[in-house]
């Protein structure tokens, strides 16, 4: 199939699935159902774009097709943060802190984490990007264990509040939060737009990038901040969903020949939105909410991941 036809198919698929998602089996109370579905749709689109965008950038700067920003431990920071506030305030948490404030703090904290790691790695000497990943991995594990420790200590009723953050759900969104997250995402995209062209060169590796006149370290710092912003948007909105990144980026590489990031980010975002919408549609109408979208996505993603591993091994 030609590239253009594939793009047309993707757009049609997206239109169909959006229509299906909005209009399938609405029942008589349209005034109630449609706005609620619209909020979920908007959330899914926001999350899809942030996951696709962040994973694509992350894979390009690490030159690795099987990593997602999840490895950097952003999600552990988020869960730990939520655990700590629930630990402090107990079941009164959301009487003390609004969801908007919570989102805001979570985003700030994840960006601070990103910046801290960057300073630790690139501050003194010129280490390579794998040291950054390693540090992220270790710190992520540390935060995760610490979070788990707190989760064991607290009251089981309060733990159920935390559980709400640990699983991906598109049903808990309120409109105010959506607006803030949307504005954050838009800001990040506008900011990232002018740096997209450099990613094409960074895909060649550090040495070629430096040879072609890029300020590699500065660019990596900018991308890491952008990634942390995007990951925190998606994580704070719906929970840990970056696993989706492996699936959608690799589908993009397989389906489309282009390697211009200007196009890739949008194709990848489209695929991510289709995957999430399809997953959510299945959860709502086929499984009747007996499962969650993360399980559907992780199941399909996991199978695809294994396929990729086997394929890579064959190539060697």
């Amino acid at each position, binding site marked *: 199939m030609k590239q253009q036809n594939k793009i047309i198919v993707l757009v049609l698929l997206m239109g169909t699935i959006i229509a299906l998602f909005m209009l399938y089996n609405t029942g008589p109370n349209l005034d109630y159902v449609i706005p609620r579905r619209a909020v979920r749709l908007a959330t899914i689109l926001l999350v899809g774009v942030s996951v696709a965008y962040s994973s694509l950038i992350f894979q390009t700067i690490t*030159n690795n097709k099987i990593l997602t920003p999840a490895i950097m431990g952003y999600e552990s920071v988020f869960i730990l943060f939520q655990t700590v506030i629930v630990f402090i305030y107990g079941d009164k948490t959301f009487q003390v802190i609004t969801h908007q404030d919570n989102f805001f703090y979570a985003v700030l904290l994840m960006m601070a984490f990103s910046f801290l790691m960057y300073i630790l790695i690139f501050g003194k000497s010129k280490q390579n990007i794998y040291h950054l990943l390693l540090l992220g991995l270790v710190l992520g594990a540390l935060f995760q264990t610490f979070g788990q420790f707190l989760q064991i200590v607290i009251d089981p009723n309060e733990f159920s509040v935390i559980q709400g953050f640990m699983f991906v759900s598109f049903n808990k969104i309120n409109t105010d939060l959506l607006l803030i997250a949307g504005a954050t995402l838009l800001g990040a995209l506008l900011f990232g737009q002018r740096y997209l062209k450099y990613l*094409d060169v960074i895909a060649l590796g550090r*040495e070629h990038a430096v*040879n*072609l006149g890029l300020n590699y370290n500065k660019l990596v710092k900018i991308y890491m901040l952008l990634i942390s912003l995007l990951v925190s948007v998606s994580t704070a909105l719906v929970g840990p969903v970056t696993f989706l990144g492996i699936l959608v980026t690799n589908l993009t590489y397989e389906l489309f020949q282009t*390697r211009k990031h200007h196009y890739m980010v949008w194709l990848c975002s489209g695929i991510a939105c289709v995957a999430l919408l399809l997953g959510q549609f299945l959860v709502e109408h086929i499984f009747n909410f007996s499962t969650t979208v993360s399980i559907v996505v992780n199941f399909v993603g996991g199978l695809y991941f294994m396929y990729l591993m086997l394929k890579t091994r064959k190539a060697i």
Partner: protein
Amino acid sequence: MIRFEQITKTYGKRLVLDNISCSLPKGKITSLIGPNGAGKSTLLSTISRLLDADQGKIYLDDICLDDYKSEDLAKRLSILRQSNHIDLRLTVRDLVAFGRFPYSKGRLTAEDQAQIDKAIHFAQLEDMAHSYIDELSGGQRQRAFIAMIIAQDTDYILLDEPLNNLDMKHAVLVMKTLRRLVDELGKTVVIVIHEINFASQYSDYIIAMKDGKIVYNDETDQVVQAHTLKEVFGIDFDIISKNGKNICNYFNIET
């Protein structure tokens, strides 16, 4: 002219470049030779800003390297390292087009297209311009990377072991291309090279390094002598003169 003064570089406790100063003549091919671990690649990486030296200054046309903006420097000096494994599906022409990035920032103009065609023609890659680089042989891929460097159109071209893992035919093709870059386009080429006979046949000057120091820096014929090479490499050489160039034999020499 590239000039460097008192360059020192250590990896951990190991001294790799030991306070060396030298200048590389313009419009010539200069080969860096020496045993493994002598510091040749490190020196080349330092000159090309891939590595920061612990001490010392590097001057390109009498302006310190630190005073160039990175994107301006990319129009003056290019570097190609030995490991060029790229896990991307690119055609040769796409790859060569990256050489124009310092000029066009990704939006190729008609002039860029002309330069890309010129570079592909210069490296004699026309018939494989639309092949994917992951489907090429090692030698063809290396020539594609050299074409990218040619498209970058810099006065100074630094190459780290451009002949690594190439068969004789591709090695000769690469060296002839470099020779033409100097003779026809007036470029300055600096290479790290292990094959002493390629250095002897194609380069104008040779810098011999050992243990982080420069031991010889002279015209090719002066360095390619039995006693100098023995001092650098620690084995015996038999020098044969043919068509005004020296050829070294270092196989099965009775001592």
